[in-house]
């Protein structure tokens, strides 16, 4: 409401003191100036053809006109959101184009190194094998850490003081040790104790221990959102503590916990990349091997693209679940 009234005041002010803003905001003016900008973009001189002064004069003049035009349109409350979106994309596109044309980067070399097509073709099948390892590892670790977290949360709910102290120590310690340190210790130090874990087991154990602690906290927080009245009602009906957890607390906590758990899972999938330091042949490790073998950073770019392709939908999914949860409320 206040934002609305303040823009109204702004409108009144600008209508009174800067009337020309209203002439240039007419649709026809916007469109024709757009055409002019396009023509100007095509006419921009190359660095080599004109003097440096003329070149920079033109470049900055064009930038000023482009930005000014965009600002005038983007701040116009009469234009539709759709039009503004187009203008925003156009602005980004033009800036990219200017960078491409005038930054002086050697694009051919860049493409040769980072987006080398023959190397890409040679890398995909190795990288996908790495991706498979990454997916399997993170799926196994995820299920085991959900199991660990749930068991811990259930045990903690019995409010046994000394056991809870142990749990708190576990949770706090493993939340404060970086996963990479945990993996290095498990892989390089534990053999001296006679415990030999191969690289897969090391990754699995490290991720389970670390994210198990996070998951336990998540479940505890979820279970605490279930009001004490719910528990009292169940207990007063004669349900045991165990039955109350099973029928009342956990079913109500789960919808609250799921978005957080999915977020944990995304973080964990990214952390599987750390496993490359203990020679687990997961995605990043495969990419780095290809990088050395083919002496080209292209496989690393490919790995980044694969991570993006796998994780971006999951990130969107978490957002979607969170907004849905907020809209429906924890439906009680």
């Amino acid at each position: 409401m206040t934002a609305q009234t303040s823009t109204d005041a702004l409108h009144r002010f600008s209508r009174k003191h800067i009337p020309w803003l209203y002439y240039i905001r007419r649709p026809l003016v916007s469109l024709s100036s757009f055409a002019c900008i396009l023509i100007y973009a095509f006419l921009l001189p190359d660095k080599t053809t004109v003097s440096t002064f003329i070149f920079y004069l033109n470049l900055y003049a064009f930038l000023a006109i482009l930005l000014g035009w965009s600002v005038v349109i983007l701040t116009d409350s009469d234009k539709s959101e759709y039009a503004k979106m187009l203008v925003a994309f156009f602005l980004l596109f033009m800036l990219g184009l200017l960078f491409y044309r005038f930054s002086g980067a050697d694009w051919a070399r860049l493409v040769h190194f980072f987006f080398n097509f023959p190397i890409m073709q040679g890398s995909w099948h190795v990288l996908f094998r790495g991706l498979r390892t990454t997916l399997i590892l993170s799926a196994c670790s995820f299920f085991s850490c959900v199991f660990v977290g749930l068991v811990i949360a259930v045990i903690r709910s019995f409010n046994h003081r000394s056991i809870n102290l142990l749990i708190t120590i576990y949770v706090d310690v493993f939340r404060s040790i970086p996963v990479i340190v945990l993996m290095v210790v498990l892989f390089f130090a534990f053999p001296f104790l006679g415990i030999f874990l191969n690289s897969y087991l090391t990754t699995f154990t490290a991720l389970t221990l670390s994210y198990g602690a996070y998951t336990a906290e998540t479940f505890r927080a979820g279970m605490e959102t279930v009001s004490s009245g719910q528990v009292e009602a169940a207990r007063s009906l004669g349900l045991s503590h165990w039955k109350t957890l099973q029928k009342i607390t956990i079913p109500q906590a789960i919808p609250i916990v799921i978005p957080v758990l999915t977020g944990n899972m995304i973080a964990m999938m990214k952390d599987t990349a750390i496993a490359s330091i203990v020679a687990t042949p997961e995605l990043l490790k495969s990419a780095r091997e290809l990088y050395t073998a083919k002496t080209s950073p292209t496989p690393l770019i490919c790995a980044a693209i694969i991570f993006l392709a796998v994780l971006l939908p999951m990130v969107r999914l978490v957002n979607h679940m969170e907004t849905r949860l907020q809209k429906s409320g924890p439906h009680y």
Partner: protein
Amino acid sequence: MDPIIKVNELHKSFKDLHVLRGISIEVQRSEVVSFIGRSGSGKSTLLRCINRLEEPTGGEIFIDGVDIHEPYIDINKVRAEIGMVFQSFNLFPHMTAIENIMLAPVCVRKISRQEAKERGMTLLNKVGLADKADEFPEKLSGGQRQRVAIARALAMQPQIMFFDEPTSALDPEMVGEVLDVMALMASEGMTMLIVSHEMGFIREAADRVLFLEEGKILEEGSPDQIFNQPQHQITRDFLGKVL
């Protein structure tokens, strides 16, 4: 006849706060006992101690002649015999009305789902909500929620019912429908312990009224005695404010 509830010198403190300071009561079968008093006088805590939602700090409680603080007592069996109705309803939001009612008989009494459902429908009929069986609590009004909560407690076929300010969270126009159900139960011979501020209802339905003040029973008697000839000045002041 032995009293169904016998409370002996009950004490309860929350850290420094001494809420109950030695309460002794006896309740006979089929008796309707009502607790009145100012807020903070320990009425709710008393009910909650009797079914051990709160652990008393001292004193004895016998339900049906059994000391419920003996270590060999299964408190869930004791609680199954005591239905409790809360001020804030506390229906389970992830279950429909009929599922709310069926939960305890199926989980605790181990009767079949079919039988539990039939029993639940009978009870919903009794509280006048048979058509709301498959609604989730969020779709019900406050009065309807509280009636479902009563049916849920009754489904365990308890010997005793506790009501902890059952109408305090309700809009005024919904108080009547809940009190009607309670009056029906009283007429059927249920042993009831009621904490309430509905003085009109208490005067009609209760056999005995106890006035609590600062964790002690200050005055006790029939509704007629308490409401018409209160002995203590504090009781008179309280009744003067609420009536």
